[in-house]
């Protein structure tokens, strides 16, 4: 069995709202599966026995390809769980006797993929009778997971954000995370926020400066000064009074720090250690007491921990090296910051420490003697942390908050040394010894002892005040026809209301009218780019089926989802979607992700779309050109909202009431209401605008000023005048679009109707024939050509299918142009007489438009067309779309 196609569904998708791997597993041979299973049973490691048992237990599953697929699914899930990911049960769909669809959740994409590969490998290995060191592979996977997943601190923040409904996204493989969308987004990097001042961090790095600033506002600090030689260090120590601390002026995590020094020798030796870390060395009064870390976030004390240095306890039998090894067996002790304790180390500093206690690594300390391995109590060097948040005296908390404020840090770890944290510092003669930027949060989230503190929540609360969720309004637009125009129109409405709008559509990505990307940008990747853009106040996202199938949605929730229609569908037969009903299910995906406060905007004339209302958590607004549509009437009777056309005007119905939005004659996009499909698009946009809270006046101004021209909306029903003939350029290439286009063209005055057309090769045979039939029935002259990329069909096949569709009686009106799109367009334009109407179905949009523009300019005295790069239309500039 092998993976035929692996998709990573990174957002809500048609199977579930979780991130999934979608794998098509194909039975690759007629190898007898029972043998495989038998062998597998024998070689499966203990920890996977439960997993496999579950598969075996379903007797019908065993000894079949289906069983094998189930096994792959279960193993992939099990490997991920063993690696430390929390995921749900996998699912297996039978496509046919040899093809299966496996759906398995993942937390970390790469871990999921590796787990999947491992599952397939295992199957192959067993079949080939090869030994697999599964335990080692799983260990490796666990390690890998630890290296790629968010650390505990950032993980806690991300979980807290998600619990508050704030979307999150990692921006790097590291800990840089974006919380929220667009202009509401905030960033965090471990315990740093985007409000953490760079200057404050520099100040915190400079202990002397920090101390002087804290001293200025009356925060108790240990007195001391910086020294330039070992000799001077001792002089300073005598001035200050021993015991003293000697440490590098800059530095962190306790590196190079020596404490409780009383003798000249010790001070001078400590100077050398410190100077090796940083040129500048400080000598300070030793403040007696325990080492406490207070975490201040947003001007509040969130957590406090007492930190203890790493120790081992003698047993009279083992050497210190052995005791350390034994202690390091504790599973809580990990190699990195990912676990609650770090491994003990016996490095130079550790050995020095032992030497001071008269010990070496080979010494065997007597039973219950405590050997200190390091003076400082940092977690990273093996220390431990006991939560003492509830014991902190309010005045100590106040001083810590003052210290953070004075340095200017929004998130700070304040190191306090005091004999009792439940007494004010002036009583205990304790002091604040350091202010740390980007403090470790692990000791508070997973203290070695005591209550874990909601640090992640505090971080999130500090950057998102109560009631804010970091979201910007999101409108998702899907359907078979009219998506792009509707998307553009909704974006236009939002823009008119003063928002900086980010928009994705089949023409590209636009932010504040700047085009950031070209090409088809209707997928989740583009959606994510817009949602990540810090200048975007509102997003309007064309959401096409391809992206949804390939990767899921690019957002978690939206405020408004519009489905223009399903119609006769498009792209059927692709991506496992064979019927319009299946397609409708895909198109309903954004509707399922409308938030409870949001709204679905649905086409009342399309039964498949009407059905989607049931899936929406929020409210529903139906639109239709037909005010008497039973769907509209019954929706309004139930108090629902509708948008329709009555007496030549777009009206918004709310329950019994109906408010006029705009007269059709004032809407340039619809050619005074003549172009029906454009009316539909505007109805949907009006409904969306209303759902977004825009005023009726604002919406009216918006749709009255919304138009399509070659420049802003290329390839969407652009109308061009040429020698008295009219050329319409449009991108539409499916049956529904052709019907809508024909309907619109019929209303325009013309002598003869001509068309340049091709069908895309990746459509079903019957779809290509149907398109040809529609064209043949409607147009007087037809220029067809074969697309450059026939999308998988042999040359000539598309033409053949189209010919079949035209029917024998119309074939004489068909001109086949062998040499491609531009040649076909050229021939068609050359044939135009005054009063003719030519519909150019443009495929390579920009190329074709340029070509048409240049043809029209040559030898055509029409002033409107003589402007380079700009093509104007006859009647009015007619903008529009049908796709």
């Amino acid at each position, binding site marked *: 069995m092998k993976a035929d196609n692996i998709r990573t569904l990174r957002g809500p998708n048609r199977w579930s709202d979780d991130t999934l791997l979608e794998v098509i597993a194909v039975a690759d041979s007629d190898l007898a599966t029972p043998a495989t299973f038998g062998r597998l049973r024998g070689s499966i490691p203990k920890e996977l026995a439960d997993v496999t048992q579950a598969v075996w237990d379903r007797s019908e599953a065993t000894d079949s390809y289906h069983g094998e697929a189930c096994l792959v699914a279960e193993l992939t899930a099990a490997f991920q769980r063993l690696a430390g990911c929390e995921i749900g049960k996998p699912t297996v769909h039978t496509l046919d006797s040899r093809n299966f669809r496996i759906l398995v959740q993942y937390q970390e994409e790469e871990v999921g993929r590796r787990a999947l590969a491992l599952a397939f490998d295992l199957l192959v290995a067993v079949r080939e009778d090869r030994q697999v060191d599964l335990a080692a592979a799983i260990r490796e996977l666990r390690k890998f997971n630890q290296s790629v997943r968010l650390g505990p601190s950032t993980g806690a923040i991300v979980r807290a954000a998600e619990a508050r409904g704030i979307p999150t996204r990692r*921006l*790097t493989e590291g800990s*840089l995370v974006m919380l929220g969308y667009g202009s509401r987004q905030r*960033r*965090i*990097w471990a315990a*740093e*926020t*985007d*409000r*953490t*001042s*760079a*200057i*404050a*961090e*520099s*100040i915190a790095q*400079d202990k002397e*400066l920090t101390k002087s*600033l804290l001293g*200025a*506002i*009356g925060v108790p600090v240990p007195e001391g000064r910086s020294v330039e030689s070992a000799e001077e260090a001792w002089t300073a120590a005598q001035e200050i009074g021993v015991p003293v601390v000697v440490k590098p002026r800059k530095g962190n995590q306790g590196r190079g720090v020596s404490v409780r020094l009383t003798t000249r020798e010790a001070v001078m030796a400590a100077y050398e250690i410190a100077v090796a870390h940083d040129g500048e060395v400080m000598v300070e009064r030793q403040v007696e007491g325990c080492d406490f870390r207070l975490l201040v976030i947003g001007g509040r004390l969130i957590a406090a921990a007492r930190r203890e240095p790493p120790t081992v306890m003698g047993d009279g039998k083992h050497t210190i090296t052995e005791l350390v090894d034994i202690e390091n067996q504790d599973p809580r002790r990990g190699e990195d910051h990912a676990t609650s304790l770090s491994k003990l180390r016996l490095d130079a500093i550790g050995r020095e420490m032992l030497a001071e206690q008269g010990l070496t690594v080979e010494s065997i300390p007597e039973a219950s003697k405590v050997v200190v391995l390091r003076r400082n109590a940092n977690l990273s060097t093996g220390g431990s942390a006991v939560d003492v948040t509830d014991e902190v005296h309010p005045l100590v908390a106040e001083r810590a908050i*003052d210290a953070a*404020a*004075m340095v*200017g840090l929004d998130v700070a770890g304040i190191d306090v040394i005091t004999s009792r944290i439940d007494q004010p510092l002036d009583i205990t003669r304790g002091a604040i010894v350091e202010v740390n*930027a*980007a403090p470790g949060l692990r000791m508070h989230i997973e203290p070695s002892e005591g209550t874990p503190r909601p640090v992640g929540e505090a971080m999130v609360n500090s950057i998102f005040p109560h009631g804010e969720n970091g979201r910007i309004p999101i409108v998702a637009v899907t359907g078979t026809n009219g998506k792009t125009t509707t998307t553009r129109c909704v974006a236009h409405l939002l823009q008119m209301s003063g928002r900086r709008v980010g928009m994705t559509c089949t023409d590209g*990505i636009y*932010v504040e009218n*700047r*085009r*950031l*990307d070209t090409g088809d940008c209707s997928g989740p990747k583009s959606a994510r*780019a817009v949602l*990540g*853009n*810090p*200048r975007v106040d509102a997003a309007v996202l064309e959401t096409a089926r391809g992206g949804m199938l390939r990767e899921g949605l690019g957002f978690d929730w939206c405020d408004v989802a519009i489905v223009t229609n399903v119609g006769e569908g498009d792209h059927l037969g692709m991506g496992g979607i064979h019927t319009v009903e299946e397609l409708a299910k895909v198109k309903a995906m954004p509707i399922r992700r409308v938030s409870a406060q949001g709204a679905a905007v649905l086409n009342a004339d399309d039964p498949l779309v009407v059905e989607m209302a049931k899936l929406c958590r929020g409210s529903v607004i139906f639109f239709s050109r037909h005010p008497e549509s039973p769907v509209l009437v019954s929706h309004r009777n139930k108090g629902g909202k509708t948008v329709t056309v009555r007496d030549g005007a777009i009206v918004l119905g709310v329950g019994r009431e109906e408010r006029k939005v705009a007269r059709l004659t004032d809407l340039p996009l619809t050619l005074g209401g003549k172009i029906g499909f454009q009316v539909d698009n505007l109805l949907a946009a009006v409904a969306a605008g209303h759902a977004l809270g825009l005023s009726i006046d604002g919406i009216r101004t918006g749709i009255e000023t919304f138009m399509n021209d070659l420049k802003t909306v290329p390839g969407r029903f652009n109308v061009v005048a040429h020698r008295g003939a009219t050329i319409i350029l449009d991108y539409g290439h499916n049956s529904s679009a052709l019907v809508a286009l024909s309907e619109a063209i019929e209303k325009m005055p013309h002598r003869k109707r001509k068309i340049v057309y091709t069908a895309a090769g990746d459509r079903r045979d019957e779809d290509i024939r149907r398109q040809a039939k529609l064209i043949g029935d409607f147009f007087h002259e037809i220029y067809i050509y074969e697309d450059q990329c026939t999308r998988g069909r042999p040359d000539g096949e598309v033409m053949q299918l189209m010919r079949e569709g035209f029917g024998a009686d119309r074939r004489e009106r068909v001109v086949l142009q062998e040499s491609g799109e531009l040649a076909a367009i050229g021939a068609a334009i050359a044939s135009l007489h005054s009063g003719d109407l030519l519909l150019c179905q443009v495929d390579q949009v920009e190329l074709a438009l340029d070509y048409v523009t240049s043809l029209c300019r040559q030898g055509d005295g029409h002033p409107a067309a003589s402007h380079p790069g700009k093509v104007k239309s006859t009647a009015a500039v007619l903008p529009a779309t049908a796709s």
Partner: protein
Amino acid sequence: MHIRKILTLVGPNIWANYSVLEAWLDLDHYDTKPSSTLPGFVDRLTAWLPSMIEHRCSEGVRGGFFMRLRDGTWLGHVLEHVTLELQSLAHLPVGYGRTRETSERGVYRVVVECLEPTFAEACLRTGRELILAAIDDTPFDVKANLRRLRELADQVCLGPSTQAIVSAAKARGIPHVRISHGNLVQLGYGKAQRRIWAAETAQTCALAESIAQDKELTRQLLYSVGVAMPAGRAAEDREDAWDAAEELGLPVVVKPQDANHGRGVSICLEDRDAVMTAFDIASREGSGVLVERFVSGTQHRVLVVGNQAVAASGGEAEHVIGDDTHTVEELVAQANQDPNRGEDSAQPLTTLVLDDISLELLRRQGLDKTAIPATGRKVIIHYNGDLTVDETERLHPDTAASCVIAAQTVGLDVAGIDVIAEDIARPLEAQDGAIIEVNASPGLVMHLKPLVGKPRPVGEAILNHLFPIGETGRVPLLAVSGTNGKTAVASLISAMWSASSRTVGEASSRGLRVGSRVLSNADCATAASVRRLLVNPFVDAMVVETDEIRVIREGVLFDRCEVAVVTNLGSGDHMAEQYVDDRTLIGKAIRTPVDVVALDGCAVLNADDPDVATMAEKCRGRTVYFTKSPTSEVARKHLEAGGQVVFLEGSTIVAQEKRQRRAIVDLGDMDFLHDRPLGAHAIVVENVLAATAGGVVLGLTPTSIRAGIQAALAETEDALFETNGRRLLVTSARNPSAFAAWGSALGDVLGQAKRHAILEVATDWRPEDAKEMSRLAAENFASLTLVVHDDAPPTVQNLSEIFEHAKLARENALSAAIDRIERIIGAAGTSDFIFVAPSKRSGKDLANEHCTKRNMVRLS
């Protein structure tokens, strides 16, 4: 001639409203020798420092000082001018100087304006040496000394970027405080402060700086907002670098992953060898190597501040031009002679260095460093050039917009965007230009001092970004000065202000307080304590007691105040301090806060003290008088002129302006004043009056003022104890004015009760002060015990004569005098009153502590 002492007076002082250095210069044997009597001195001096011709001095004309020199002037005066000149020649121009005699013959105070104390001091000392050399006709290398002084100035002064912002702040009247030896500066005071560090602001977030450091991450983020940087990727090794170059298309750029200032960057690499060599160079920087598509054009720098591109500069690649004679190496050396070139960030051109990258570049130009290029041939030394030409006005708006988007996407409020373009006046797309880098904390020198084109006000831009127009960076500061009652008035006003929901910072001799917190109990009427208030980010109102002797010795530190309250100019305080020889000096010190009252500020002056009343003339803001007598002439005139007066009418404090009278507080209604064991005695009333006037000027409501009086008096400093019917008051009366005030107050309150006094001799009494104290004691007390420390000034050593009727207790510490108190209590009659007046705060605390320990009943 030697310098006895140097005082640094920070901020306004008795000499000027800005910082000065005050040196006590002893002329030694030159005290009889003016300049004209020293042979050759004037000629040598004028030859060494010819530019002093500009010093107009008292003559008021160009060359005025040289005229004085020839006519004969004292060397102190000469030192003043030389010091000023040295500072100016070392690029820190200053103009103010004064030289005054002291009471001691041959000793002068030489006062010079000072921008940086350590530097000014070095100039002063150098000046002295220069003068001595000129007198003795010994050699003095003026040039070398100036060079040394300039180097020192560079070390101690702010860097050019920081200075530009600070200067902009000064122009807008926003004060600044340096909070480290480097470029960390606080703009504004207290709660209104914002910090800057070179071109980093308080709003620059560390996270954005980390993003800007990471080129790959920056590229991704910018790509997603449509600001495309050149394509590129990280390269693992030399081979991979070449693979990357081939993938991207030649030519390419190879640079370290977190490159800064063009270090390790090789540009326009066309072949395999060049790419590999460049990889080696870049990988030495240690952070990983990036290969990027090469964008042709010259480098430009666009400075983005907030949401605007405020400046742009461009320049050429670093190059030398051949002359058919010199080798490349020699040409480089010649170019480096240009005074505009240097390692210093203040210089517009950097020193040309022939490093590996340049050698490689030379090789590609078919040269090496010993080659002699033909005349006119341009030899590129480094592709990244110095940015010397201001291009701000040519910057295309689309490019400006892209730069702003780039900065905002990375998250920087101030950013330098590196742009490659053939012509910055055309859009980038049109010429295949690109943004190649986003830099945090960009240098500003290129915009401040372009070699070609206009300097750009980038300091102003950053300042206005931090302090939008209309923000002053200030929290209101009220200063209280005067010989008597200033501590009490300060604490009363603090309490009133606190009652109106302000976080008041108070620095006074009773301590340092912020809000309800006591930061220090020691005497904090000092410049150092004021500094602690100015940097405190919680303080949104400041009350500062300015002690006259400290003003004389330290300056007041704050650059201006909104309100200055002056209680009185009594007599007898500090007069024995060295060179505080006359009352005028004390008067000037007390007046100093009045001199720096803001234009829209106010002086609150005691109309009943003629010396204080006339200070109004020196006030740039308005004046409000307070007086005990509503009929006061000064007050009447002031009212007629439309001014405001606060006065006592019966027991009511009234504020009047024109015809409008407002009763602020009726002391008769304030029970607590009468409940006090000593009642509402005159001193309390006077202090309350002055403080109320301050409160009125601050716009506080009568309710706040009353609440403040109540709160302040409840924690009065003066402690009254009772033991077996005898009452004992511990208070301060260290000068004649205070002692006199207490004498008369006690007379009013106590009537016939027998009074004893224990007085500690203050170290700064002059003989006449001691005599006055003696007279007052005899007038008001039945017995006087004098506590004399060994460090009492020699001028009053003859105490037994002066205080003929007093018992002298010669003690080294007041602790021993405690016994004395005990004995006096023992000897006193049952209804007697004992007045204890230590001269220092510590003594007062000690006495209070003793009485409390002895279980005396504290009455207040």
